[in-house]
C-alpha cells in the first residue's frame, strides 16, 4: 500500500492527535498540487494504523488513540531517557484535590462550582482556577439556575493529558454520570477556602 508511507509521515509530523477520518480525507485529496488516492476510506486508515502500531512497538515509539485521534509518542518505559533531553517538557501532574475536582467535572459537565463543592465537601475555587489556567477545563456558559452561575466543562487538552480517546473512555462513565449529586445548598456543604 503506497499511501502507508504518507500516513506514517503525516502521523510523525503531526503535533496534535489526528482523526482517521481526516487522515483519509487528506490521502484522498492528495498533496498540494498533486494526486491523491481517491479510494482510501477511514476504515483503511484504521486498519493500516493497527499495522503501524505493531511496527512501532519494537522501536521505542507507540501509537496511541487520544482525544479523538491518533498520535505517535515515545514508549512510556523510556520516559526517564526522554526527560533528559533539553527542551522536553513534562506536564506537571495534578494534586489530589485538583484530581478530585477534575473527576467531578469530567463526569458531570457542564457543572457549576457550587455543585462540585457539594460533592467534594470543600471549597474548590483554588483548584478550579488552577485547572482553567492549565487549559484542562474551561468555562462553557452559564446555568439557568438562580444567580446564573458559571458552568465548567473539559477541553480537548483534558483528554490528551489523561490519554483518553473521548469522554466515553472515562472509567465507569455510565455509573458516575447517573449518580444523584448532593444539592449545592447542602448544609454540610463547603464554606471556607481549602488549604
Amino acid at each position: 500500500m503506497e499511501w502507508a508511507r504518507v500516513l506514517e509521515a503525516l502521523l510523525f509530523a503531526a503535533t496534535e492527535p489526528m482523526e482517521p477520518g481526516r487522515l483519509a480525507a487528506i490521502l484522498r485529496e492528495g498533496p498540494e498540487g498533486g494526486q491523491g488516492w481517491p479510494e482510501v476510506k477511514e476504515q483503511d486508515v484504521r486498519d493500516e494504523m493497527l499495522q503501524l502500531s505493531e511496527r512501532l512497538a519494537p522501536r521505542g515509539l507507540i501509537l496511541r488513540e487520544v482525544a479523538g485521534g491518533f498520535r505517535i509518542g515515545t514508549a512510556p518505559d523510556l520516559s526517564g531517557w526522554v526527560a533528559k533531553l533539553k527542551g522536553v517538557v513534562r506536564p506537571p501532574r495534578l494534586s489530589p484535590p485538583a484530581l478530585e475536582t477534575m473527576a467531578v467535572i469530567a463526569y458531570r459537565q457542564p457543572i457549576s462550582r457550587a455543585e462540585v463543592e457539594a460533592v467534594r465537601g470543600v471549597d474548590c475555587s483554588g483548584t478550579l482556577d488552577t485547572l482553567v489556567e492549565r487549559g484542562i477545563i474551561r468555562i462553557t456558559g452559564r446555568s439557568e439556575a438562580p444567580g446564573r452561575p458559571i458552568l465548567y466543562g473539559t477541553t480537548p487538552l483534558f483528554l490528551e493529558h489523561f490519554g483518553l480517546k473521548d469522554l466515553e473512555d472515562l472509567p465507569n462513565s455510565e455509573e458516575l454520570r447517573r449518580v444523584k449529586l448532593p444539592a449545592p445548598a447542602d448544609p454540610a456543604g463547603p464554606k471556607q477556602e481549602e488549604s
Partner: protein
Amino acid sequence: MIPMLETPGSEALRVELAAFTGPLDLLLHLIKEQEMDIYDIRLEKLTEQYLARLDKMREENLAIAGEFLVMAATLLYLKSRTLLPVQDRPPEEVEEEDPKWELIRQLIEYRKFKEAAGQLGEREALHSRIFGRVPERVTASSALMGPGQVSMFDLVWAFQKVLRSVEERARAGRFSDEQFTVGQKIEFLLDRLQPGEEILFEDLFRSMSSRGEVVVTFLAMLELIRLRQLVAKQDGPLRPILIQRALDPVVNAEDAVLETGEGAGQPVADSPV
C-alpha cells in the same frame, strides 16, 4: 497542599494529615480504618475518631480548614440525635428518614468520585510518561530570531491566548468602559518593568478585563520591542514567553513616546464604532 515540614520527627504524620482532601476524605479513611460498613456506620465511634484526628491536627499546629469543623458539628448533632428516644425527637423529624442517611449518601457519592479521581491519576501517571513531538516551527523561528528570542507570530499567538482569557473574564461579568491610549500603556509598561526585570507575558495582562485595554497594551508592547526597550524571549519551544526590559536601552523612554507620534496619542475606544 503539603505544609512545610520543620520537625523531621513529625514528618510522616504531617504528610498523612495533609493528605486528606477534605472532611469527607477523612471520614472515608476512618470508616475503612475502623472496618465499618459504610451503610451501617457507628456514629459514636466515628465521631470520637474524627474529633481525635482534629485534635492531633491542632497539636501539630496545622491549619484546619473550616469544612473540617463544620463536619465535626454535623457529626456531633447526628450523634446527639441518636441518643434521644423517638418520642422526644422534633415532630417534623419523626416522620422523616434518619438524617444520618444524608451523610451516608454523600459519603457514598463522594467515594465514587474519589475512586474515579484515583483512576484518572493512574492514567495521568502513565500518559505523562509518553512524549509527543513538539512543533518544529518553534525551533525554526527561534533559530531565525537568534537564541532565546521570539518571533512576531509566536507573540501574536500568545496574545490571542490572553484575549481568550479576557473574554472569559468579561463573560464572567467584569466589564470596563475605560479608554486607553498606546502612549499611556507605553508609560505603564516602562513603569511596571525596571531595566533588566522580566515578567511572564500573560501576567502583563492578568488584571485587565476589557479587550480594548489588552489590545492597546499589546500594541504598546510591540512598539517597545521595536524600539528595543523590551525583549520577548522563550527558554525553549512551548515554554512560557517572558518579556524583559532591556538593560541598556538604545532609545530612552521619552523618545519612545515621541517616536510613536500621533499613533501613540490616539485614544482607542473599547468598542470602536
